[in-house]
């Protein structure tokens, strides 16, 4: 069928059958349906301009323009459905792919992204983000955690402790995300849990983005004396974003418990079996 959907007992995720991009998430238990478009984009790293000679580098994130470029407007997709898991494999480009997964009994959508080596043959440094766009009326507000404990309310182009004269529309609204970022309206909350610290923001109402990888060509004159440019072709990085859709009122119990499982994930150890008894008894 033209429909490209994966689901388990609790969650359903729908993909555009032509572009292969995620377009909708549904919480079947709570009867919540949210159009969510997720895709990868890249900011062109600034090398300095007429406004400022500041370059994007290891210390400084400074894109050369406000709008990022899409890595690809569509993905080649493959579908896997078994008793225990349903997956959509998305291939956006030679250096950007993702597996969207739903395990049996799970309350979150798992997005395992693989990004890199980032190509810079065009002479442009690139800062790669995963962005979620929804219709949530968030009124300039979004929420990020501080070391996994306190959740801080963030307001676009604003600082609670001083009158901000915003000079960097993108970088000036980026914040550290140690374990989660979320947006909500009066009814629904969309939370993204990270498996490592990343930079994140919400630059438009209903939108939320996380930076997953960077590769820059110039040093930002803050002391490193070297561009953020790994040796050889550079690293490819794999990580996971867990997406939860909940009622705004009850979302905390969902993301807090899941974030604990993420941070204190089980340790898997293998053994051939048939070892000698430890003690004589």
């Amino acid at each position, binding site marked *: 069928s033209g429909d490209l959907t994966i689901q388990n007992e609790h969650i359903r995720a729908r993909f555009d059958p032509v572009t292969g991009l995620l377009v909708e998430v549904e919480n079947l238990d709570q009867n919540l349906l949210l159009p969510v478009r997720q895709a990868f984009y890249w900011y062109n790293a600034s090398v300095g301009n007429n406004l400022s000679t500041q370059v994007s580098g290891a210390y400084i994130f400074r894109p050369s323009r406000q709008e990022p470029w899409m890595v690809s407007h*569509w993905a080649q997709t493959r579908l896997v459905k078994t008793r225990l898991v349903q997956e959509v494999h998305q291939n956006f480009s030679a250096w950007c792919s993702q597996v969207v997964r739903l395990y049996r009994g799970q309350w979150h959508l798992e997005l395992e992204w693989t990004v890199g080596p980032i190509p810079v043959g065009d002479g442009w440094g690139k800062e790669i983000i995963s962005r979620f766009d929804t219709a949530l009326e968030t009124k300039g507000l979004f929420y990020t955690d501080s070391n996994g404990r306190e959740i801080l309310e963030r307001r676009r182009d604003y600082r609670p402790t001083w009158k901000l004269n915003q000079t960097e529309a993108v970088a000036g609204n980026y914040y550290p995300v140690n374990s989660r970022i979320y947006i909500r309206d009066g009814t629904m909350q969309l939370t993204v849990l990270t498996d490592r610290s990343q930079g994140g923001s919400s630059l438009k109402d209903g939108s939320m983005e996380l930076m997953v990888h960077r590769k820059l060509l110039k040093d930002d004159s803050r002391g490193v004396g070297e561009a953020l440019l790994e040796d050889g072709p550079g690293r490819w990085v794999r990580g996971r974003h867990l997406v939860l859709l909940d009622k705004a009122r009850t979302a905390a119990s969902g993301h807090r418990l899941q974030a604990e499982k993420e941070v204190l994930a089980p340790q898997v150890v293998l053994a051939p079996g048939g070892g000698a008894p430890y003690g004589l008894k």
Partner: protein
Amino acid sequence: SGDSAPLNEAMAVLQHHDAVSGTSRQHVADDYARQLAAGWGPCEVLLSNALARLSGFKENFTYCRNLNISVCPLSQTAKNFQVIIYNPLGRNIDWMVRLPVLEHGFVVRDPNDTVVPSDVVTLPSSDGQELLFPASVPALGFSTYSVSQVPGRRPYAHRPQPRSPWTW
């Protein structure tokens, strides 16, 4: 004997903002990674000793550090092996275990020797396979599952079906 002090020391060094935010030269970042990896080695011995003591068997415990890129020599070669899952949380958890395997059929048994459902799926853009099975692990405890190859049975390894009109 195992030792967690080297990892403690590596973590202490990595409190520096260069390690936390990557604002160091490449060779320094590589050295941070080296210190962490060197610190993790003696911890594996520590964990193995604890598991041997708690499980009552001296096993040759193996840690697969590259599960995130589906590499684990033991699960990819052994016909039978055990999977011990340790849960550091103070509550029971259910966890989907994923292990790279060669293309075979498998039977997975839980600590009570009951068969648990399992699947073998093919990895994206490769022909690797991964064995999946749901595990239940007690609070601050561990569970041991046993995996056995079923001779002759080739799984219906769930191959991804190309969905887009374009070839993969």
